[in-house]
Protein backbone atom coordinates (compact mmCIF):
# COMPACT_ATOMS: atom_id res chain seq x y z
CA UNK A 1 0.00 0.00 0.00
CA UNK A 2 2.89 2.33 0.77
CA UNK A 3 5.10 0.64 -1.80
CA UNK A 4 5.66 3.86 -3.70
CA UNK A 5 6.74 5.90 -0.68
CA UNK A 6 10.44 6.68 -0.92
CA UNK A 7 12.74 7.03 2.02
CA UNK A 8 16.42 7.47 2.72
CA UNK A 9 18.09 4.61 4.60
CA UNK A 10 21.23 5.02 6.68
CA UNK A 11 23.25 3.61 3.80
CA UNK A 12 22.04 6.45 1.64
CA UNK A 13 20.15 4.14 -0.69
CA UNK A 14 16.67 5.31 -1.60
CA UNK A 15 14.23 2.43 -1.34
CA UNK A 16 10.51 1.94 -1.23
CA UNK A 17 9.03 1.23 2.21
CA UNK A 18 8.27 -2.49 2.14
CA UNK A 19 4.80 -3.85 2.71
CA UNK A 20 3.87 -5.98 5.70
CA UNK A 21 3.98 -9.10 3.51
CA UNK A 22 7.46 -8.18 2.26
CA UNK A 23 8.75 -7.61 5.78
CA UNK A 24 7.28 -10.94 6.90
CA UNK A 25 9.01 -12.67 3.97
CA UNK A 26 12.32 -10.99 4.87
CA UNK A 27 12.04 -11.91 8.56
CA UNK A 28 11.12 -15.50 7.65
CA UNK A 29 14.28 -15.83 5.54
CA UNK A 30 16.37 -14.39 8.39
CA UNK A 31 14.90 -16.87 10.89
CA UNK A 32 15.61 -19.68 8.43
CA UNK A 33 19.24 -18.56 8.19
CA UNK A 34 19.50 -18.54 11.98
CA UNK A 35 17.84 -21.84 12.88
CA UNK A 36 18.82 -23.71 9.73
CA UNK A 37 16.76 -24.40 6.62
CA UNK A 38 16.19 -28.03 7.66
CA UNK A 39 14.23 -26.88 10.71
CA UNK A 40 12.44 -24.12 8.86
CA UNK A 41 10.96 -26.67 6.44
CA UNK A 42 8.97 -28.15 9.36
CA UNK A 43 7.71 -24.79 10.50
CA UNK A 44 5.01 -22.51 9.24
CA UNK A 45 6.22 -19.00 10.05
CA UNK A 46 3.16 -16.78 10.38
CA UNK A 47 2.42 -13.45 12.01
CA UNK A 48 1.13 -15.42 15.02
CA UNK A 49 4.27 -17.57 15.49
CA UNK A 50 5.81 -17.03 18.93
CA UNK A 51 9.54 -16.62 18.44
CA UNK A 52 10.83 -18.36 21.57
CA UNK A 53 8.40 -21.28 21.72
CA UNK A 54 7.02 -21.91 18.21
CA UNK A 55 10.25 -21.10 16.37
CA UNK A 56 12.56 -22.15 19.24
CA UNK A 57 14.89 -19.19 18.95
CA UNK A 58 17.26 -18.96 21.91
CA UNK A 59 18.36 -15.65 23.38
CA UNK A 60 21.67 -15.65 21.50
CA UNK A 61 19.74 -16.07 18.25
CA UNK A 62 17.93 -12.81 18.99
CA UNK A 63 21.40 -11.21 18.79
CA UNK A 64 21.84 -12.78 15.35
CA UNK A 65 18.40 -11.49 14.33
CA UNK A 66 19.33 -8.00 15.57
CA UNK A 67 22.45 -8.05 13.38
CA UNK A 68 20.52 -9.21 10.32
CA UNK A 69 17.87 -6.52 10.81
CA UNK A 70 20.56 -3.84 11.17
CA UNK A 71 22.32 -5.08 8.03
CA UNK A 72 19.05 -5.08 6.09
CA UNK A 73 17.29 -1.96 7.36
CA UNK A 74 20.06 0.14 8.91
CA UNK A 75 20.05 1.94 12.26
CA UNK A 76 16.47 3.13 11.71
CA UNK A 77 15.26 -0.24 13.00
CA UNK A 78 16.77 -0.35 16.51
CA UNK A 79 15.74 -3.88 17.44
CA UNK A 80 18.23 -4.04 20.35
CA UNK A 81 16.79 -0.94 22.01
CA UNK A 82 13.25 -2.24 21.48
CA UNK A 83 14.00 -5.63 23.04
CA UNK A 84 16.04 -4.03 25.84
CA UNK A 85 12.94 -2.07 26.86
CA UNK A 86 10.85 -5.22 27.32
CA UNK A 87 10.27 -7.36 30.37
CA UNK A 88 11.37 -10.97 30.07
CA UNK A 89 7.69 -11.98 30.20
CA UNK A 90 7.04 -9.91 27.08
CA UNK A 91 10.02 -11.31 25.18
CA UNK A 92 8.90 -14.87 25.90
CA UNK A 93 5.58 -14.32 24.13
CA UNK A 94 6.89 -12.05 21.35
CA UNK A 95 5.34 -12.94 17.99
CA UNK A 96 6.68 -12.55 14.47
CA UNK A 97 3.78 -10.18 13.82
CA UNK A 98 4.95 -7.84 16.59
CA UNK A 99 8.45 -7.77 15.07
CA UNK A 100 7.02 -7.08 11.61
CA UNK A 101 4.82 -4.29 12.99
CA UNK A 102 7.81 -2.80 14.82
CA UNK A 103 9.92 -2.80 11.65
CA UNK A 104 7.07 -1.28 9.67
CA UNK A 105 6.61 1.49 12.27
CA UNK A 106 10.34 2.33 12.13
CA UNK A 107 10.39 2.51 8.34
CA UNK A 108 7.16 4.45 7.89
Amino acid at each position, binding site marked *: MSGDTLQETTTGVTTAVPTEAEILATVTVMIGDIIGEEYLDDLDVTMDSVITSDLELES*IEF*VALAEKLRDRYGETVDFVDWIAGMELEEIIVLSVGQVVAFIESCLR
Partner: protein
Amino acid sequence: MPEVTVNGLRFHTQTLGDPSDPPVVMIHGMLTGNAASWYFGLAPVVARRHGVFLYDQRGHGRSQRPPTGYTLTDLASDLDGLTQSLRPASVLGHSYGGVVALRHALDHPDRVTSLVLVDTFVPGSTGDADRQHHQVTSAAEVPDSSWGAVDPDGGARRRRPTAEQALLASTTLLSDLRQDSVLDPAGLAALQVPVLCAVGSDSPFRGDVEALVDLLPVQQRRVHVLTGGHALHLDAPDDLADLVTGFLDEVETSAERRRVALDG
Protein backbone atom coordinates in the same frame (compact mmCIF):
# COMPACT_ATOMS: atom_id res chain seq x y z
CA MET B 1 28.81 -11.89 12.93
CA PRO B 2 31.98 -10.57 14.64
CA GLU B 3 34.41 -13.40 15.31
CA VAL B 4 37.88 -13.69 16.85
CA THR B 5 40.07 -16.80 16.95
CA VAL B 6 41.80 -17.45 20.29
CA ASN B 7 43.33 -20.71 21.55
CA GLY B 8 42.44 -22.26 18.20
CA LEU B 9 38.71 -21.64 18.70
CA ARG B 10 36.30 -19.22 17.02
CA PHE B 11 34.64 -16.83 19.46
CA HIS B 12 31.58 -14.69 18.82
CA THR B 13 32.23 -11.20 20.20
CA GLN B 14 30.27 -7.96 20.41
CA THR B 15 31.33 -4.42 21.23
CA LEU B 16 28.98 -1.65 22.34
CA GLY B 17 29.59 2.01 23.05
CA ASP B 18 32.61 4.19 22.32
CA PRO B 19 35.86 2.18 22.44
CA SER B 20 37.72 5.30 23.63
CA ASP B 21 35.66 5.26 26.86
CA PRO B 22 36.89 3.15 29.82
CA PRO B 23 36.57 -0.53 28.85
CA VAL B 24 34.24 -2.99 30.57
CA VAL B 25 34.31 -6.73 29.83
CA MET B 26 31.20 -8.78 30.63
CA ILE B 27 31.33 -12.56 31.09
CA HIS B 28 28.20 -14.70 31.18
CA GLY B 29 27.60 -17.72 33.42
CA MET B 30 28.10 -21.31 32.30
CA LEU B 31 25.57 -23.61 30.59
CA THR B 32 22.57 -21.31 30.18
CA GLY B 33 24.43 -18.02 29.76
CA ASN B 34 25.67 -16.35 26.60
CA ALA B 35 26.42 -12.85 25.33
CA ALA B 36 22.67 -12.16 25.11
CA SER B 37 22.60 -12.31 28.93
CA TRP B 38 24.04 -8.77 28.70
CA TYR B 39 23.33 -7.69 25.13
CA PHE B 40 19.69 -6.69 25.59
CA GLY B 41 20.07 -5.55 29.20
CA LEU B 42 23.06 -4.34 31.20
CA ALA B 43 25.44 -3.84 28.25
CA PRO B 44 23.59 -1.01 26.45
CA VAL B 45 23.16 0.86 29.76
CA VAL B 46 26.84 0.58 30.70
CA ALA B 47 27.82 1.39 27.09
CA ARG B 48 26.44 4.93 27.44
CA ARG B 49 29.74 5.81 29.14
CA HIS B 50 31.97 2.79 28.55
CA GLY B 51 33.36 0.67 25.77
CA VAL B 52 31.69 -2.69 26.46
CA PHE B 53 33.15 -5.95 25.20
CA LEU B 54 31.06 -9.14 25.26
CA TYR B 55 31.75 -12.65 24.08
CA ASP B 56 30.28 -16.12 24.17
CA GLN B 57 32.50 -18.37 26.25
CA ARG B 58 33.73 -21.53 24.50
CA GLY B 59 30.86 -23.97 23.92
CA HIS B 60 28.25 -21.25 24.48
CA GLY B 61 26.11 -19.09 22.23
CA ARG B 62 27.65 -18.74 18.80
CA SER B 63 31.23 -19.56 19.80
CA GLN B 64 32.81 -22.86 18.83
CA ARG B 65 31.96 -25.87 21.04
CA PRO B 66 34.97 -28.14 21.52
CA PRO B 67 34.25 -31.53 23.16
CA THR B 68 36.82 -30.95 25.92
CA GLY B 69 38.76 -28.12 27.54
CA TYR B 70 36.38 -26.40 29.96
CA THR B 71 38.63 -25.99 32.99
CA LEU B 72 38.93 -22.64 34.74
CA THR B 73 42.43 -22.40 33.29
CA ASP B 74 41.04 -22.79 29.75
CA LEU B 75 38.26 -20.25 30.31
CA ALA B 76 40.61 -17.68 31.87
CA SER B 77 43.05 -18.20 29.01
CA ASP B 78 40.24 -17.40 26.54
CA LEU B 79 39.47 -14.18 28.42
CA ASP B 80 43.15 -13.27 28.43
CA GLY B 81 43.48 -13.85 24.68
CA LEU B 82 40.26 -12.04 23.79
CA THR B 83 41.15 -8.91 25.79
CA GLN B 84 44.79 -8.57 24.69
CA SER B 85 44.08 -5.47 22.65
CA LEU B 86 42.02 -3.75 25.38
CA ARG B 87 43.36 -1.26 27.89
CA PRO B 88 43.12 -2.37 31.54
CA ALA B 89 39.41 -3.00 32.07
CA SER B 90 36.67 -3.44 34.61
CA VAL B 91 35.68 -7.09 34.39
CA LEU B 92 32.15 -8.18 35.29
CA GLY B 93 30.91 -11.74 35.53
CA HIS B 94 27.67 -13.50 36.35
CA SER B 95 27.90 -16.71 38.37
CA TYR B 96 30.89 -18.72 37.11
CA GLY B 97 31.74 -15.85 34.75
CA GLY B 98 32.76 -14.04 37.94
CA VAL B 99 35.10 -16.89 38.87
CA VAL B 100 36.72 -16.51 35.44
CA ALA B 101 37.01 -12.75 36.10
CA LEU B 102 38.63 -13.37 39.50
CA ARG B 103 41.09 -15.86 38.04
CA HIS B 104 41.99 -13.30 35.34
CA ALA B 105 42.54 -10.62 38.00
CA LEU B 106 44.82 -12.98 39.97
CA ASP B 107 46.80 -13.96 36.86
CA HIS B 108 47.00 -10.46 35.33
CA PRO B 109 46.55 -7.84 38.07
CA ASP B 110 47.85 -5.08 35.78
CA ARG B 111 45.02 -5.68 33.27
CA VAL B 112 42.08 -5.29 35.66
CA THR B 113 40.91 -1.97 37.13
CA SER B 114 37.91 -3.31 39.05
CA LEU B 115 35.70 -6.38 39.33
CA VAL B 116 31.94 -6.90 39.47
CA LEU B 117 30.70 -10.29 40.67
CA VAL B 118 27.01 -11.03 40.11
CA ASP B 119 25.92 -13.84 42.43
CA THR B 120 29.29 -15.49 41.96
CA PHE B 121 30.40 -18.47 43.99
CA VAL B 122 33.02 -21.13 43.57
CA PRO B 123 31.16 -24.43 42.99
CA GLY B 124 32.18 -27.03 45.52
CA SER B 125 33.95 -24.54 47.77
CA THR B 126 31.72 -25.67 50.60
CA GLY B 127 30.21 -29.09 51.18
CA ASP B 128 30.79 -32.42 49.53
CA ALA B 129 31.09 -33.58 45.94
CA ASP B 130 27.37 -34.40 45.57
CA ARG B 131 26.40 -30.93 46.63
CA GLN B 132 29.02 -29.52 44.28
CA HIS B 133 27.58 -31.48 41.36
CA HIS B 134 24.10 -30.34 42.29
CA GLN B 135 25.25 -26.70 42.38
CA VAL B 136 26.74 -26.83 38.90
CA THR B 137 23.81 -28.65 37.30
CA SER B 138 21.12 -26.61 39.06
CA ALA B 139 22.68 -23.47 37.60
CA ALA B 140 21.35 -24.87 34.33
CA GLU B 141 17.84 -24.17 35.60
CA VAL B 142 18.43 -20.44 35.19
CA PRO B 143 16.21 -19.53 32.22
CA ASP B 144 18.86 -17.55 30.41
CA SER B 145 19.56 -19.02 26.98
CA SER B 146 15.94 -20.09 26.50
CA TRP B 147 14.62 -16.88 28.07
CA GLY B 148 12.31 -18.78 30.32
CA ALA B 149 10.41 -20.62 27.60
CA VAL B 150 10.83 -23.79 29.60
CA ASP B 151 8.65 -26.65 28.47
CA PRO B 152 6.87 -28.69 31.13
CA ASP B 153 8.27 -31.80 29.45
CA GLY B 154 11.85 -30.61 29.85
CA GLY B 155 12.29 -29.49 26.27
CA ALA B 156 11.60 -32.93 24.79
CA ARG B 157 9.16 -31.32 22.38
CA ARG B 158 11.89 -29.14 20.87
CA ARG B 159 13.13 -29.92 17.39
CA ARG B 160 16.53 -28.47 18.15
CA PRO B 161 18.48 -29.16 21.35
CA THR B 162 19.00 -26.11 23.59
CA ALA B 163 22.53 -24.83 24.11
CA GLU B 164 22.72 -26.37 27.57
CA GLN B 165 21.41 -29.74 26.36
CA ALA B 166 24.15 -29.75 23.71
CA LEU B 167 26.82 -28.73 26.22
CA LEU B 168 25.79 -31.42 28.70
CA ALA B 169 25.48 -34.12 26.03
CA SER B 170 28.59 -33.48 23.97
CA THR B 171 31.25 -31.87 26.16
CA THR B 172 33.24 -32.50 29.34
CA LEU B 173 32.19 -29.14 30.79
CA LEU B 174 30.72 -30.45 34.04
CA SER B 175 33.60 -32.74 34.93
CA ASP B 176 36.15 -30.11 33.87
CA LEU B 177 34.58 -27.48 36.12
CA ARG B 178 34.54 -29.94 39.01
CA GLN B 179 38.25 -30.64 38.62
CA ASP B 180 39.60 -27.14 38.41
CA SER B 181 37.34 -24.61 40.14
CA VAL B 182 39.91 -23.36 42.62
CA LEU B 183 40.91 -19.80 43.43
CA ASP B 184 43.94 -19.16 45.63
CA PRO B 185 42.58 -17.72 48.94
CA ALA B 186 45.83 -15.85 49.64
CA GLY B 187 45.62 -14.27 46.20
CA LEU B 188 41.99 -13.25 46.75
CA ALA B 189 42.84 -11.71 50.13
CA ALA B 190 45.58 -9.65 48.46
CA LEU B 191 43.46 -8.27 45.58
CA GLN B 192 44.34 -4.63 44.94
CA VAL B 193 41.25 -3.57 42.97
CA PRO B 194 37.73 -2.63 44.08
CA VAL B 195 35.28 -5.54 43.88
CA LEU B 196 31.51 -5.04 43.72
CA CYS B 197 29.56 -8.10 44.84
CA ALA B 198 25.87 -8.23 43.92
CA VAL B 199 24.09 -10.95 45.89
CA GLY B 200 20.61 -12.28 45.07
CA SER B 201 18.36 -12.12 48.16
CA ASP B 202 16.71 -15.39 47.13
CA SER B 203 19.64 -17.01 45.40
CA PRO B 204 19.87 -20.74 46.12
CA PHE B 205 23.63 -20.16 46.30
CA ARG B 206 23.51 -17.27 48.76
CA GLY B 207 25.59 -18.99 51.45
CA ASP B 208 28.24 -19.91 48.90
CA VAL B 209 28.23 -16.40 47.41
CA GLU B 210 28.78 -14.94 50.88
CA ALA B 211 31.55 -17.47 51.56
CA LEU B 212 33.41 -16.11 48.53
CA VAL B 213 32.75 -12.50 49.63
CA ASP B 214 34.41 -13.32 52.97
CA LEU B 215 37.63 -14.23 51.14
CA LEU B 216 37.85 -10.78 49.50
CA PRO B 217 39.71 -7.92 51.23
CA VAL B 218 37.37 -5.82 53.38
CA GLN B 219 38.84 -2.52 52.14
CA GLN B 220 38.21 -3.48 48.49
CA ARG B 221 34.84 -5.19 48.55
CA ARG B 222 31.42 -3.58 48.38
CA VAL B 223 28.56 -5.98 48.97
CA HIS B 224 24.96 -5.30 47.95
CA VAL B 225 21.99 -7.62 48.27
CA LEU B 226 19.47 -7.12 45.47
CA THR B 227 15.95 -8.53 45.48
CA GLY B 228 16.03 -11.52 43.17
CA GLY B 229 17.44 -14.98 42.63
CA HIS B 230 20.66 -16.22 41.03
CA ALA B 231 19.97 -14.54 37.68
CA LEU B 232 19.97 -10.94 38.93
CA HIS B 233 20.43 -9.62 35.40
CA LEU B 234 17.00 -11.08 34.61
CA ASP B 235 15.34 -10.68 38.03
CA ALA B 236 16.51 -7.14 38.90
CA PRO B 237 17.88 -5.61 35.68
CA ASP B 238 17.29 -1.97 36.66
CA ASP B 239 18.66 -2.30 40.20
CA LEU B 240 21.71 -4.14 38.86
CA ALA B 241 22.32 -1.49 36.19
CA ASP B 242 22.10 1.32 38.79
CA LEU B 243 24.45 -0.53 41.11
CA VAL B 244 27.02 -1.31 38.41
CA THR B 245 27.04 2.15 36.78
CA GLY B 246 27.31 3.81 40.22
CA PHE B 247 30.22 1.56 41.14
CA LEU B 248 32.05 2.16 37.84
CA ASP B 249 31.60 5.93 38.24
CA GLU B 250 32.97 5.79 41.77
CA VAL B 251 35.98 3.69 40.75
CA GLU B 252 36.79 5.92 37.78
CA THR B 253 36.39 9.14 39.77
CA SER B 254 38.77 7.95 42.47
CA ALA B 255 41.26 6.71 39.85
CA GLU B 256 41.10 10.14 38.20
CA ARG B 257 41.67 11.86 41.55
CA ARG B 258 44.75 9.70 42.12
CA ARG B 259 46.09 10.60 38.67
CA VAL B 260 45.58 14.32 39.32
CA ALA B 261 47.22 14.04 42.75
CA LEU B 262 50.22 12.24 41.25
CA ASP B 263 50.53 14.75 38.41
CA GLY B 264 50.17 17.71 40.76
